[in-house]
Structures are given as C-alpha cells and as structure tokens.
C-alpha cells in the first residue's frame, strides 16, 4: 500500500500530463459508447425512456430490412476492399520503379477523386445515371439504345455503388502502396534478376510479401470505412429500390433520424461496433506482437 502510494507520487506528473487527453477520450469516445449501449436497451420517446432489455435486438433480427442491410454491408466490404487492394497493387507494382515524374502523375491522377467530397461524387454520378434526366440514359435514348436504369435495378445497383466507392477510394491505397514499394531495398530486386526471376515472380515473391504491413493497414482501414458507407447510398439510391441497396449505416440513420427509433438505432450501432472490433482484432494482434 505504502509502495503503491510512493509509485503514484513518483508518477503524478506523468499522469497529470496525460490527463487532458484521457479526459477528452473518456468524454468523447468512451462515454458515447457506454451511452449507446445503454440506449440500445431502452424504448425512447420525447417524453420518457422505458427499459425493454434486449427487445430492440430481437426486433432487429426479425426485421428483413436489417438482415438485407447486413448482407449488403458484408458484400460491400468484401468486394470494395478486394477490388481496392488488387487494383492498387496492380497499378503500384506497374509504376513504382518508373520515372519519378510519371509516378507523380499517376499518383496525382488517382488521388484527385479522393480529394473530391463523396457528396459531390454522388451528385455527379446521379446526374449521369438518373433514368429520367441523366446524361447516360439521354445519350442511350438518342442513339436508339435500350436504356438500363442502373440505380433502379436490384441486380445492377450494388455493382454500381461498389464501382463508385472503389473509384473514389482507390487513390489512397495507391499512394500508400507506391510509398511502401519505393522503400523496398533495391538489392532484393537485383539479386532476383541475377537469379533469373521474371517480373511476375518478383512481384509475387518479393514485392507483395515486402509490403504486407501496408496491405494489412489498407485492408483494415477500408473495412472500417466501408462498414460506415452512407453518403453514396443516401444521395444516389436512398437505399432503394425496395431496400436493395440499404446498408447498416443507412438503416441506423433512418431509424435514428427519420423514424425516431433511437433505441433500435443504438442497437444497430452496438452491433456495428462489435463487427468492427472483431474485424480490427487481427491488426491489434499484429501490433501487440511487434511489441
């Protein structure tokens, strides 16, 4: 006890220095999470809150729109993350060892969509794809081609959203991969060339394994970002047609702000939190391993 008090006194200055950050962390991150978990167990009206246990969760698992949202979110995560990693690896591996100006040009070209707000991108795509007054259906009609409503067809709406999100995000991954690949020691490539390895072997046996930490980082960051996919859904499809493109985040938003079902929305938030936690676990483990 005496020893503990001594240790505390010894480290007091240190604790006080981290106190502001810790305090803000507790107020703005830990408290909302706890409050979210609490709210998920209540039915909330403007005038009162009633404890309902796990009723909100039960209601969610019986709701076909929630199930559809979960499946769509999983689909988005799998396809967008896979596309991003494969395409970014392909582009980066093809250009990283070229002329510096060329690399900068490629990097810049792919990064421009990342800088443009998702809201603007969604509006541009809406202008292009709107079946009644969009540019693509208009041109198709003028050319006497049969027009497809990409956003109104349950079979095409998901691929369109996947493509738009992928096209907007891939620049970030390309930047990270190129930076990582430039950092791979040159002598490894030279040794491989001396041994007669072709470009493909170099990519698969040297480059990809050497940039593994970047790949892990890109995968985790993209999984977390895609789990929260919202703007493109809200502005482009409104979750439609008939909830075909609704996602967990959009479902949460609708319940919280349109239907005023704060309890149900909090329950969705808790489920999303758990999914993110599980998916982030490999990264956390690799971080602890290093230490």
């Amino acid at each position, binding site marked *: 006890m005496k020893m503990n008090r001594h240790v505390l006194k010894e480290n007091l*200055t240190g604790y006080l220095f981290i106190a502001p950050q810790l305090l803000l962390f507790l107020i703005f991150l830990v408290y909302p999470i706890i409050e979210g978990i609490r709210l998920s167990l209540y039915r909330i009206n403007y005038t009162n809150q009633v404890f309902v246990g796990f009723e909100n969760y039960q209601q969610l698992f019986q709701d076909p729109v929630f199930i559809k949202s979960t499946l769509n979110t999983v689909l988005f995560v799998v396809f967008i993350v896979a596309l991003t990693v494969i395409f970014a690896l392909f582009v980066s591996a093809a250009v990283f060892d070229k002329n510096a100006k060329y690399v900068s040009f490629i990097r810049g070209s792919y990064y421009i969509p990342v800088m443009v707000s998702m809201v603007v991108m969604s509006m541009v795509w809406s202008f292009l794809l709107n079946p009644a007054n969009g540019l693509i259906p208009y041109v198709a009609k003028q050319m006497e081609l049969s027009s497809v409503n990409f956003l109104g067809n349950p079979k095409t709406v998901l691929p369109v959203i996947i493509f738009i999100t992928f096209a907007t995000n891939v620049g970030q991954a390309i930047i990270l991969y190129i930076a990582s690949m430039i950092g791979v020691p040159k002598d490894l490539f030279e040794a491989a060339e001396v041994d007669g390895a072709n470009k493909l072997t170099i990519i698969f046996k040297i480059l990809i394994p050497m940039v593994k930490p970047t790949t892990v980082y890109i995968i985790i960051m993209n999984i977390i970002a895609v789990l929260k996919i919202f703007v493109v859904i809200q502005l482009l499809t409104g979750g439609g047609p008939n909830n075909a493109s609704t996602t967990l985040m959009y479902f949460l938003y609708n319940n919280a702000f349109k239907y005023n079902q704060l309890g149900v929305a909090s329950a969705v938030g808790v489920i999303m939190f758990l999914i993110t936690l599980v998916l982030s676990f490999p990264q956390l483990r690799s971080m602890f391993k290093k230490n």
Partner: protein
Amino acid sequence: MLKKRFLATALSSVLALSALAGCANKDTGTPEKGKDGKQKVELSLMLTPQWKGVMDPTEKGADYDSFFKYAADKFSKQYKDYDVKVKVEVVASEQRDELLNVKLNGGTPPDIFFENTFAMGDYAHRGALVPLNDIVDDKAKEDIAQNYWDTVTFGKDVYFYPFSHMPGTLAYNADMFKAAGLDKYIGGENDIKTWTLDEYETILNTLKKKLPKDAYPMGIFALNNQGDTWNLAYLRMFGNKFFDEKGNIVLNDANGVKAAEWLKKTYKAGLTNPGAESVSSNDVLSMFQNQKVAISFTNSVLFNNAKADMEAGKAPKFDIRLANIPSESGDPLTFTYVSGAAIFNTKDETRIKVSKDFVKFFSTDPELVKASKNGIPVRTSVVKEFESTNPLFAAYDKNAKYMFNFTGGVPGYSQLRQVLYPELQALYTGQKSAADAVKDYQEKGNKVIQDARANSVIKE
C-alpha cells in the same frame, strides 16, 4: 531538483484543469437587456419552402424567408413586453424530420415551425408541441372554417394555427396538348379540368405517340417520401377508401390492387417517365418545367411559383393549366395541405409565451394574413377580398367537395410515409406484383400505426 519537479507538476495540473474549462456553464447572470431596457428574447423560426416574397413572388429579391423576416420586424416594432429577434431559417422538406429529430433529442428544438400540418402531426403525438388553444379566439374561429380547425386539432387541442392551404391537383402543359391535337381536353385558364379515367388514358396514349422522344406524357416518382400524397391519391383511383373508421389501412382489397395494377400498367406502357423507382418528385417538377413531361403533380403554391419562374425568365414559358386526378367513378380526387405554425415545447416559459404572441400576430394581422393568397387563404375574409383578382379561388372552392383526408388523422404518419415508397419501388421494378405490394404495405403500415398509437401522448 525539487523546484523543477514542482514546476512540472504545476504545469501539468494547469494543463489538466484547462481541459475542463470548456465544460463550465455559460454565465447567464441577469437577462440581457435590449432596446428600451426590455429583456432580449431570440426566437428561432424554421420553415420549409412555401411561397416566395412577402406578399408576392414577383417582388424584388423575393425568397422563401421574406414573409417571416418582414413579419418578425413588424412584430418586434410593436411588441411591448420584450425586445424580440427572430432568426428565420428555411430547411428542405426532405431534411425536416432528420433536423427536428436531432434537435429534439439534443434538447434544442426550434421555437416555431411553419409547415404543412400533415407532416408535423407526429410531433404533437410525441408531446413535443404545445397546444395553441389559448391564442385562438372566437373571431378567428368564425373567419376560418371548421374543417381547417379539425385538421389541426389532435385529441382536444389545437396544435397548429392555420394560415393557408394548398390543394393538390395535376398540372398540364396545354401547349403540348395542342401540339398533340388534344385541344378538346384542355380546360379554361382558370378552371380545374376534370377528365374521366378513359379520357385520361386517351390523353396519355396520344401524347406518347405525338411527343418528341425525350418527353413523356405523365410524371411519376417513387424515390422517396416526397410528393407521396399524389401516389396515395392514385391508389384511390378505383374507389378504395384507404382507412377504415378505426384508422387502420384497408388498401388491400380489389379496388386497391386494381389501382396499383393501373400504375404498373401505365408505367410499363411507357406513358410515364422511365425509372420511377429512382426518380424524385423534384426531378419530375424540373422535367415538367423544362417541358419534358406533359402532366405533372402540383399544388397551388407550386403552381404559382412555376408561373412566377416563367414570368421572371427563370424557366421556359408555356401554357400551364390545372386538372384533377381522375378516378374510375368519374368524380375527381383532390386533397389539401393546411399550412400553419406550430410551437415546440422548449421548456422555456418566456420563449413559449413570445412564440405564441408572434404566431398569433402573423396569423391574425390584417395586412400579413393577405400573404395567404399565395396558397389558398383559410380565412373567408381574405378569400372574399381576393376572389375577384384570383379566379382560381372559386375553382378550388368548387373542387372542395371531392377532397379526401389523406392522412386519415392516424398517429405515426411520418413513419407511415417511409413504408409506401419501397413498396412502390418493388412494384415498378417487378420485384412484387400489385397484390403483394398492396398487401405488404397494409401489413407494415398498420404495424406502424399500432405502435405509434401505443406511444402517443394524445389519447383520442
């Protein structure tokens, strides 16, 4: 060493305490004094786009907030009790519920909201609005017909002060009709033309043949809940009553299914714009104004705004006229939105009192109530004053007997609106048959009503 350590501890303590500084309560002290030593009160008033200008959309710099800014200024000048400032904010209709729910859950609702009352009834059921019985006097009750008071009364209390109303109809491009040889179906400039369903189908089919290939006979939409009242009207075209006496949806009968089938058939035949499932009511309005759609939905304010835009050169000019939504029986279908102000329970007695005084002021002031002519005035006195200069008032009056109450007065109407458009999307995309879409809508809709009724603070 000790001194250095003391300094470090002191510095870190200051740092830690400074993080808490922002959490301190604002020092409210004594109330701020304004002009003439009166206490300052700042109200926030929100509205969705209604009419432009103070009295008329043709005024210079006319905008959606012009009227309320003018009314606030006039009120402030003559108000004796407090020095009042009113912050007027226009919010998009489709953002209304999101915004209000965030503000209500954060404990910062606006003081006053001016909107079509059908969209705000749920807030009364949720206990977020204060009753306005004490600002409604006998004079107002005499001047405003009972049916408008019925629309704004929930349980025993009045929650909205009726200002104007906006009957919903169709609008058509008479120039397109003439070009298609449909002259005999064109009504008078100040008439609301009534077509039979057969005539309507003839019009649509003729337009399809005669219009340029990038224009469509009729505008339909199902992207979201905006403009869904017209979709509700189309679902009554074959005589379905929609709600029973107990306030439950009864769309799932032969007539309801027939109406859904008619919508699908009309859409599939190319008599409407394509992609209804991804098209919003705003898209259809733009298409109509740009002469890409011959028949669109409208209400009295949208109609006036469209005309004003044409006059101001903001939109292509054409001969725009009104028609009723047809039905199989031959009797037209029409409805109205009563617009008015509601006051939120901010739990601040002073602000609620001043809000009530302001709402009463602009809803009764003889000069200000004239602005209701931009829609259709709810006050008989204003109708009489303007009926000679606005002959459409008489046409709307003649139409009033065909009006139906599209909300059915049921609780949970806002959420009910979120259930309809996914079913219409499923219908248009072929995911569901008309019978299934109607059946599922009734099932989901009645569940919404049942839950909302259980949670309502208003016991009817």
